[in-house]
Every structure is written in C-alpha cells, then in structure tokens.
C-alpha cells in the first residue's frame, strides 16, 4: 500500500476512535445538566443518584476524547501538510476559534464540575456543568463548520493556489452546515440515550433496581423515542441537501451508475468499481427516485456522469459508501422499532413490566449509536473522495511525503492502543454498572467531608 492510502487509513482510524467519545460527551453533558436541574427543582435523590453514576462515565469519555483529539491537531501537519498550505486561511481561524471558545471552557470547568461540588456554592457547580455542556457543543459547532465547508466550500477566492477568505459569514453558514450540525447533535443525543438505556437495563437485569436506575432508563427511552423520528427527518433533509451540492455522493450511496428517472432503491448489491456495474441486485422499483425527488419518475444522478474525458474517476469508490449508508439507515430503523416498543410498554406497565427480551434488546443496543454515527460519517467522508475540499483540493495533493513504512508502523501502533483502550472503556463501564448494582459507593471514601480543608 502507498503512503496516500495508509495515511487515509491512519487518519480514518484516529478520527473514528476520537469521534466515539465526543459523540457521548456532547449530549451527556446536557443530560447531566438535566439531572442536576431536576434535582435542584425537586430535591429528589434519584436524580442525584443518576447524576453521580453518569458523571463518572462522562469523565472517562471526556478524557478519551481529549487525548484522542490532541492526535488530530498534530495529524494535519504530520500527514496532510497540503491541507493547511492550501486552505489554512479558512481552516485556521475556524480551528483557532474552536480551541479558544470551546476547549479551554470545557477543560477548565470540567475540573470544577467533577471535583468541585464540595468546594464551590451549588449554583457555581450547576453553572460549571452548563459551561462544560455548552463548551462541548461549541466545539462540535466549529468543527462541523470546517467539515461542512470542506463539503460545500464558499466565501473564498483562490490566489496563486491558496484559498483566501472573502466572506466569513458565507464560510461559517455554508450550505451543508445547518443540516450536518443538527444531524450530528441528534446523533449524539441518540447515542447517549441508547447508552444510558442499555446500561440501565443491564443494571436492572442484574438486580440493581434503584430509583436512580428507573429514572435514568425512562428518561433515556422516552428521549430516544422522541428523537429518532426527528433524526430520520433530518437525515432526509441532509440527503436532499447533498443531492443538490454533491450529487456524485448520492449516486454512490444509491450505487446508481446511469443518470435517469424511475431509479429503484437497492436493498442489496455488490457494486463493482472496475466493471462499473452492480452484481446481485435486490431492488424496490422507483423508490430511490421517490425518496430523493418525491416523484416516482424523478431523475437521480448517476456515477457515469462523474468520469473525466481522460477516464479520471471523480466520484468515490462505490461499495464503501453504499454499504456505510445502509448500515446507518438499518441501525436507525432498529433504533426506531426498539425505542417505540419500549416506550409503549413503559407507558402502559412501567419499568417493572418490561419483558426480559426487551431489556436484553436494550443491552444489545447499548452502543448502537456509535455504529450509526460511524457509518454515517463514513458515508459522508468517503463520499467526498477523491476530494479533500470538494472541487478545490484533492486528497492526493494534500498528503505528506512520508515513507509508507513509517505511516504503516505508526498506524499499527495506534490501532493496538485504540483496540486495547476501547476494550478497557467498555469493560469499565459495565464494571461500574455491576458495582453500582451491588449498592457499592463508587467513591473511595463513604462519608463526604463537610468542612473543606483550609487554604495554607
């Protein structure tokens, strides 16, 4: 394999590992604030019980997100120097604003949120929780702005091969940004909903049937049931936006080779990039046209329109995009079915009335949000290839001239570390859940100290 494909795999591995944790912390921060505010309003200890458990998962996820995120800021330089050299005038300020307005906010107030409750007044602790949640969301905003600009660039001019900003408003509010940002925020909330529901169901099954578990489980299932239809709607809007701005991506998602009307929706196919056709198609007639244009005879773009005169392929490899998209949609449908069924049962019979298979189903879907989120990102990011910045900079032109062996060796090192850490992370979450179910206090010392230690 050459440096280009190895660098792509390395960046893909790093950013895939990284995104798992912000996907949790973005929404979990707001969920913790919700628990805290409910406790402030009602004084009921069950909200605080839920807060105390989930703040530990938050701390762990946050640490994983911070350290894997540092990797990203270096990889721009180590692997993709052409990116900053060409579009640094636009990417730079956006990244700088992320660090300045988000990273420090969340990192500093995280300390107060985690360890400061006995040292600061209650309102300041609630404010710290809010600022951490706000910080993670701001961080998501800036990075989505940059990512969206790479898909739908505008507000700039090229001078001597370097992009110069002409209109910051147009850059920030580029056409795909609002859809992508909303889609990602909803993905984060769904991921957290299924995480909380799954772990709470696990605790319930093994006998930890406390008021805190009950309230967390209910909040999570109702949250998921409310958000999943919204997400499906938002996904559809995002898809239509992509159809307008990046038709080649839509063509790859549908594995549609020839532009034309009455395009069927493929349920299964093995797209063959070399032969430029699909094998083993199973299709529903007219459905792709119907979904994308809302007419059975609507015209859907085909991949063959994106081949240059000289035979240069200007669309992504089809199979990866096609299948990532199907994994995302399939997971979304599973989420819809399970959350609505569980919510209906909860409304009628309460947590006690949930049948075993439903509880096991929730446990099985604990990390379904990760699957859908990764599959969605693969769809959109691989779907942008061969471009790094759509129409402006190709991925090939941005890669660093580093020996392939060096990229391969560091890639293996990263993969080993990531596999171990991911395993440890999942094990520890369930270990914490088992301890909580046994009624153990998760803090080292049982009694809080009322008197803070005086200053020197």
């Amino acid at each position, binding site marked *: 394999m050459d440096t280009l494909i190895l660098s792509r795999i390395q960046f893909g591995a790093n950013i895939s590992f990284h995104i798992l944790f912000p996907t949790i912390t973005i929404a979990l921060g707001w969920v913790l604030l919700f628990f805290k505010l409910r406790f402030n309003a009602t004084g009921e200890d069950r909200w605080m019980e839920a807060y105390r458990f989930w703040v530990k998962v938050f701390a762990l996820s946050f640490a994983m997100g911070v350290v894997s995120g540092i990797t990203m800021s270096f990889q721009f330089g180590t692997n993709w120097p052409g990116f900053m050299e060409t579009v640094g005038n636009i990417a730079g300020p956006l990244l*700088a604003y992320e660090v300045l307005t988000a990273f420090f906010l969340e990192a500093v107030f995280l300390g107060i949120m985690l360890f400061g409750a006995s040292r600061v007044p209650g309102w300041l602790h609630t404010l710290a929780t809010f600022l951490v949640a706000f910080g993670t969301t701001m961080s998501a905003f800036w990075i989505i702005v940059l990512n969206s600009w790479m898909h739908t660039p505008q507000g700039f001019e090229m001078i001597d091969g370097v992009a110069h900003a002409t209109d910051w408003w147009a850059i920030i509010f580029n056409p795909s940004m609002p859809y992508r940002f909303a889609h990602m925020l909803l993905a984060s909330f769904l991921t957290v909903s299924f995480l909380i529901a799954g772990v709470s169901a696990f605790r319930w099954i093994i006998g930890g049937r406390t008021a805190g578990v009950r309230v967390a489980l209910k909040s999570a299932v109702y949250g998921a049931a409310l958000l999943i239809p919204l997400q499906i709607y938002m996904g559809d809007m995002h898809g239509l936006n992509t159809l307008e701005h990046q038709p080649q991506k839509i063509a790859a998602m549908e594995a549609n080779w020839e532009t034309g009307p009455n395009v069927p929706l493929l349920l299964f196919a093995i797209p063959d990039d070399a032969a430029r056709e699909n094998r083993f198609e199973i299709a529903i007639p007219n459905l792709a046209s119907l979904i994308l244009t809302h007419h059975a005879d609507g015209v859907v773009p085909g991949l063959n329109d994106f081949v240059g005169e000289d035979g240069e392929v200007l669309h992504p490899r089809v199979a990866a995009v096609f299948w990532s998209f199907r994994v995302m949609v399939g997971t979304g449908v599973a989420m819809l079915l399970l959350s609505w069924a569980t919510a209906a049962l909860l409304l009628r019979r309460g947590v006690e009335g949930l049948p075993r298979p439903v509880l096991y189903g929730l446990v099985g879907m604990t990390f379904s949000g990760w699957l859908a989120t990764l599959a969605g990102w693969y769809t959109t990011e691989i779907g942008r290839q061969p471009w790094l910045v759509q129409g402006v900079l190709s991925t090939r032109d941005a890669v660093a001239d580093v020996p392939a062996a060096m990229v391969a060796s560091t890639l293996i090192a990263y993969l080993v570390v990531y596999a171990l850490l991911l395993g440890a992370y999942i094990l520890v979450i369930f270990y914490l859940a088992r301890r909580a179910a046994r009624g153990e206090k998760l803090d080292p010392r049982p009694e809080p100290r009322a008197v803070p230690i005086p*200053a020197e």
Partner: protein
Amino acid sequence: MDMFSDPALWLPFVFAGLMGLSILIYVVLDGFDLGVGLLFPFANEGEKDRMIGSIGPFWDANETWLVLAVGLLLVAFPAAHGAILTALYLPVAVMLIGLILRGVAFEFRAKAPPEWKRLWNRAFFAGSLMTSMSQGFMLGMYVMGLTWTLPHVAFALLTAAFLTVGYSFIGATWVIHKSDGLLQLKAIDWAKGGVWGLVLGIGAVSAATPYVSVRIFDKWFSWPEALYLAPLPLLSAALVVGLWVALRRMPFDRDRRSWLPFAMATGLWATAFGGMAYSFYPYVVPEKLTIYEAASAPESLFIILVGTVVVLPTILGYSILAFTIFRGKARELRYD
C-alpha cells in the same frame, strides 16, 4: 513604530509571541503534571493517590495549552507546521501515544477493577515518560535544525533525558506545594536531585545553540548586545542558587512559602525559554523559514487576533478561578 503600519509585519510577530507564550505556559503547567507521572515509581500507593489528587482538576486544561500552541502554529504559520511536523513524524507519534496513555490511565486507575490499578499506574508512568522523552527529543532536533544526522540524534537523545529530568523537577516542586508530611519530605529530595539535571539541560541547549548557527552566536556574543542580554544568564544562575538554598532548608516553619520552589522553577523555565526565543527569532523553522515567510494571510490572522484578544484574558481568568478553588493541600479525588 513604523512596523505597526503594515499588518503583514506586525501580525506574524504578535502570533509568534502568542505561540511562544502558549508553549511556555504549556511546559510549566503540563510540565508539572507530566513530572508527577514521572515520579510515580518513587512513590508508594497512598502517595500515588495524593499525587494524582494534586493534578486531577488541572491536567485537562494544562494539556489544552499544547493544543493552543500547536493550533497557533497550524493556523498562523501553516507552512512551518507542515515542515516541522513531517520532519518530526516519529517522535510526534510517540508523544501522542504517550499523551493518550497517561490521559486515560488517569481515569482508568480510579475506575477499573482494583487488580488492574497497578497496570494503569504503570501506563500513567510510561505515558508520562514517552511524552517527556519525545518532547525533549523534538526540542533537541529543533535546536539542531530538524535534520536527521547521527550527531543530531545523539544530541536530541541527550535533551530528551534532560527535559525528562526537568519535568520531574518541576513536578516535584508542585508536589512540595500540594502535600505535607512524609510525601513533602520525599518531594524535597526529588527536587534536590532534579536541580542538577535541569542545570545540565539548560546548559547543554545554551551551549549547543550558538555552536549550530553563526547567526545565533553573533546575536549573543557581539558588543553591546552581550551586555543587554547579561541579565538573562545572571537571573538563571540566581534562580538556581536560590532553589538550591531553599530546598536545603525546606520545609519551612508551619509550611510557609511551600510555593517558592515551584515559583522559582517557573522563573527558571521562563528565562531559559526567553533565551531560546531570542536565539531563534525571526526563524520559525530554524535557519530555513522566518515567521514572516510562513505566516497566513493577514486577513485570516486578523480575525483570529480579534477572538484571541477577547477570549485569552477570559481563559486566564477562569483558569485562575480553578486554581483558586482547588488551592491548598491535595486530597484524594472525590466526585462531590
């Protein structure tokens, strides 16, 4: 000044200053928490918990200064970012894996099953060691002009060892401030041992830098510049002597001035760093690329500067708030 009439001149200068400031704050702040990790093998189990407690609320924000520093390099001097980081590809990868290990070990050692705790303690030490060594190595390579020759690598290995000792030293001074009793006495001993490594390290870089470049030699050893610059080495020498005297007499009665070694260590880092910055200016890639050649377009730098001017004081403000809230002696970390 004439310089301020042209933004293409003063903006790169301002950003080089901001980047330098971020690096300095980073090596002091993450220096002390990396140092705490490096000192782990010398501490017993109970002491490890207290040492972790002394950095717990801070380490996240401390590492953010690295992100800001490399971020400023990335956004203000994109050409230099690529040139420096591709040259340092391997040490950067080692550092990143080190940072990942220590950051997560911090959480895992407190939350994983007790039988794993020793493993995560080792990971915390190993991650801190990888991070410090690779940063020291990069410092050495940078001083030597980022070319991979055998003598340069040998020198970089030397600075790797020195920076590691230096971080352990500032970590020890932090533990002196945040602990009491036996742990504090231990930390004073650690710091006494570390002073000499620090002196050798600063000495090695100071001696090597002018040797590598005639330009830098002339900056330091021509008249009358040498006279204006004299306070820098003199101040460093005074701080070293002050540290040595203070450490020999510590702990003072009723734990007064336990912050003194940390403050003096910070001063020492600042003078050393100031000297280096003076040596290399105006180059950002040594002897190859000046800050003016590597800078982004003025209109992009300006929009970052506007944000920085508003946000940086705010960041300093709430960082001080956090350090005030968690002042005093460290205790085990508790989520309440």
